[in-house]
């Protein structure tokens, strides 16, 4: 049985990362933007796991767990902030949450 080459995983994670960046830049709903960031972090996790598998070392796995912890904490804080935004403005469109200009 032939193995899937390492470079495929790395390419996949790079593609996922770019998709996340594109989602962040072009989507207008705050929740969707937030999900795009999570996609970026998961792409990073895939890179870590790939390298960890290739190098047969465990600290890439560890880093991936820490990234997950941070992503969860970020989601908790982020959703709380998004809730207050919705309560005060009644909208989740990112273009409407832009009152500080001069």
């Amino acid at each position: 049985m032939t193995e899937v080459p390492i470079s495929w995983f790395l390419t996949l994670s790079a593609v996922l990362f770019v998709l996340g960046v594109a989602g962040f830049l072009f989507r207008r709903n705050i929740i969707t933007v937030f999900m795009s960031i999570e996609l970026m972090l998961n792409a990073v996790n895939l890179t870590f796991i790939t390298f960890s598998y290739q190098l047969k070392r465990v600290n890439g796995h560890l880093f991936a767990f820490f990234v997950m912890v941070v992503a969860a904490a970020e989601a908790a804080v982020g959703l709380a902030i998004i809730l207050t935004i919705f309560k005060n403005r009644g909208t989740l469109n990112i273009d409407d949450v832009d009152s500080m200009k001069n």
Partner: protein
Amino acid sequence: MSQFYTSTDHFTIIPAVMLALFGCAILLFDFLVFPDPRQRKYLLIFVALAEGFTGYALYRQTEWLTANGQTSLTGFGGSVTVDGFGIFFNWIFVIAAMIVAVVSYKYLEISGEHHGEYYGLILFAQSGMYFLATGTDLITLFIGLELMALTFYVMVGFLRTDKRSNEAAIKYLLLGAFSSGFLVYGFSLMYGMAGSTKLAVVAEAIRQRPLWDPVVFLALATTSVGLLFKISAAPFHMWAPDAYEGAPTTVTAYLAVASKAASIAFLLRIFMGPFWSAKEVWEPILSVVAVLTMTVGNLAAINQTNIKRLLAYSSISHAGYMLLGLVAGNDTGINGIAVYVMVYTFMNLGAFLVVVALRRQNIIGEDLDDIAGLMSRSPGYAVLMLIFLLSLAGIPPTAGFLGKYYIFLSLIQTGHFTLAVIGTLYVAVAIYYYFKIVRSMFIRESTEKAPMATSAGLRLALGVSGVLTLAIGVYPEPFLRLAQTSLLR
């Protein structure tokens, strides 16, 4: 198998442990002992104790280093390194956190959002900063950064019913998380090259690769996005004016001073560690970024009418000056950054504290009109603000001159004459917009007569910042010697 948690390990992280424990104690006591909102200012005792223990631990670490004749002490198998650099930056965080905590209660009471967890968040953010200044492992640095950033997202949005505060929080959160995504992608590539997350091993792996290696370049580019965002360098500065304007002014002061100092420490750890051998690659990039940062900061500040926004753009331009020290890259330049960060802490804290005092019942107090005629109303505040602004502009005999002097000196020593000239020209622009505030204070008539919102803590903090801003400028030797201890390498 080595021991899991030795006394050396403990010794290297004790300040952060103290801060986290006292932060938890504050959350608990706020809930159980001080249900009455008027008693919440007694939580300051816990902050003072935490900072006292942290300061003592830092002092003991310094003592240990001098007693054993070592330059650094590593714990956790090289994940945390206590050295002069980390200790120096941590003293800055201790002072900034203490000053911010002391001035906050009056401001938060007026804003109607005086909650105990505010003081806990200050300490949690500071324990994140501890790991940013002392971490020498990608995981430690990442967790430290996120601990600091997450607490700041909450603090920026602390005024829950205020639309501007919400908006500032969501902008800071989204852009902050976006940039740390880039940063951690860069970290994953560094790990892939080295097979280890230790900065020293990563540095060795990068040194063995060719100078223009594409993987090194990609890692450098993505990591730089995250780092430059954190110090609010152009073109990743967009969050700063909004976050600074919308956040409670006390949080703005903490964000502008401590968060920026910690991010500069982080940036130096990365650029002087793993990426040092690729200096030829990043030097031109960082020069362009520094010039762009000074341009954006100084030119955009000219038209601002909101003082917090103006100071936000000014703090962007200061980040540009600090980057110039890294571009020069010799000992004078790196030492110059340490001096600059120290000086910047006191003068910028002072300037924001005056804005804190302008917030009174039913008066937001952030506009240039609100500070008009301050000289006739409260001359003490006006004179102090004048000192801080002169220092921010870099005019002797204030401390700000000293910071800029070493940066420009290092640029000239390393032959970056164009950068030195550009930097000097922007000082002239900066004088123009700082004097807009001065003119408003001294020449214009005041529009309202409400007295400044003072408190004992605020007066003390202003006095300390004012005295230090002048003292560093007039008698710099002891402060320079302190900054000398912070040299990396």
